């Protein structure tokens, strides 16, 4: 890795989340004790409404319904503000801007002059070199999500929080996007919220199952991600994880 990305290789911190989330004094989840290892992918699964997205918003420092009692700390002791980029299920592209302009949105919003050379490199990296001047309306779902990925990469933040970014894509596009994301987010501390056991087993250095009571680690196969989806160990892990998810429901 590292080609075209030599600039600003920031050491990614590990992140610890400890505490309980309340909504109207009713406990949503916790008390959880979760460790996101530095420079690795942590995949969080759990049934709908258990607070996976809440957890992500919490780490991102976004406003939430309810209250969090506890703390979120980075291993290097610094704050997390402005060190996080978020990628959501919907691509959040602005329809009136071209792919290139969407990619440099962060710089525009901070009132900085965008680095278009770097943006073009990012777009090349995600395979959109020929589509830079198109509007999002003219792109397929996969291309839109790739634009969103390029926009996330442009931010060059050491921590990436991904909220089901691939769930709206068709199976083959999803597999492509998973590989691309794993490649380009290498070295960053990544939290991926997903509904898909296969995705978690494929991408996660660590898998966590979130329930109302706890954040339980789930054993991953003995090979590093990105794992072969059809290797026996991967398939077995997926099956066990799915069975577990159905059980806790």
């Amino acid at each position, binding site marked *: 890795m590292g080609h075209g990305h030599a600039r600003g290789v920031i050491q990614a911190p590990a992140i610890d989340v400890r505490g309980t989330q309340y909504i109207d004094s009713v406990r949503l989840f916790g008390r959880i004790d979760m460790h996101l290892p530095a420079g690795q992918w942590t995949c969080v699964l759990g049934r709908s409404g258990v607070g996976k997205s809440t957890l992500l918003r919490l780490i*991102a420092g976004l406003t939430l319904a309810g209250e969090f009692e506890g703390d979120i700390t980075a291993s290097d002791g610094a704050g997390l503000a402005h060190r996080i980029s*978020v990628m*959501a299920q*919907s691509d*959040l592209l*602005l329809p009136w801007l071209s792919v290139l302009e969407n990619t440099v*949105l962060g710089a525009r*919003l*901070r009132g900085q002059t965008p680095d278009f050379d770097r943006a073009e490199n990012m777009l090349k990296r995600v395979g959109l070199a020929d589509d830079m001047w198109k509007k999002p309306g003219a792109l397929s779902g996969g291309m839109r999500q790739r634009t969103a990925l390029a926009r996330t990469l442009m931010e060059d933040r050491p921590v990436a929080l991904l909220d089901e970014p691939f769930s709206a894509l068709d199976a083959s596009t999803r597999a492509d996007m998973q590989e691309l994301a794993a490649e380009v987010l290498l070295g960053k501390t990544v939290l991926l919220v997903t509904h898909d056991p296969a995705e978690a087993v494929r991408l996660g250095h660590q898998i966590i199952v979130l329930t109302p009571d706890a954040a339980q680690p789930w054993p991953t196969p003995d090979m590093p991600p990105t794992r072969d989806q059809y290797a026996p160990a991967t398939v077995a892990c997926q099956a066990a994880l799915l069975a577990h998810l159905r059980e806790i429901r």
Partner: protein
Amino acid sequence: MTRIRYALGACAFALLLWQGIVWVTGVPSFILPSPLRVAQAALDNRVLIAENALVTATEVILGLIIGTVLGAVTAIQLANSDRLHRLVMPLLIFTQAVPVFALAPILTLWFGYGIASKVVMAVLIIYFPVTSAFYDGLTRVPADILDMAKTMGGTKRQIMRRIKIPHALPSLGTGLKLAAVYAPIGAVIGEWVGASKGLGYLMLLANGRAKTDLMFASLFTLAIMTLLLHLAVIKASDYLRKS
């Protein structure tokens, strides 16, 4: 094209019906002139009508521009500050309960018989629809997008400029379409209350002298002007939507 053909057909039918009623009932022309008579009056008085139409058009367009700018600036300020919104919005809604028609004599007193009082009328009548339509657009940016802007470290000013305003332009277009129809009403009411020029003035003048055909000719001129303005605004707001 078929739509235009249908519209023309409907107009032709209405004119024929009108002409037919005049023929059958033999109603005197100072009560209801026939379309042919109105067309003749329009032709005979074309210079007079054109001069006055130009005055009204100037009032309407100036009113539209000033009202839109004021409305857009207000909407942006209101969207920037919740407190300002809570403070100002009730006032704005209250002013909507005052019929603008009732203000016309006062405006004429304050701004005189010239075009200023009519422009102010037009501004007052379109200010609120433009403000509220644009404000709605500015405050309805999806929360996800604003969250993203926040994690990117965007400044309030840039978020307004790069996200909220472009997002709200189609809503502004909707407000402008309403404004294009309301603004001529404001101008004409102003002219009725006190003026020496304009289509509203011409209509009153013609009416007072029982020149009903000239009154109808002025009325149709006004209607056509309003339609053209409306079409122009639709074109402009389509452009806003696409850009």
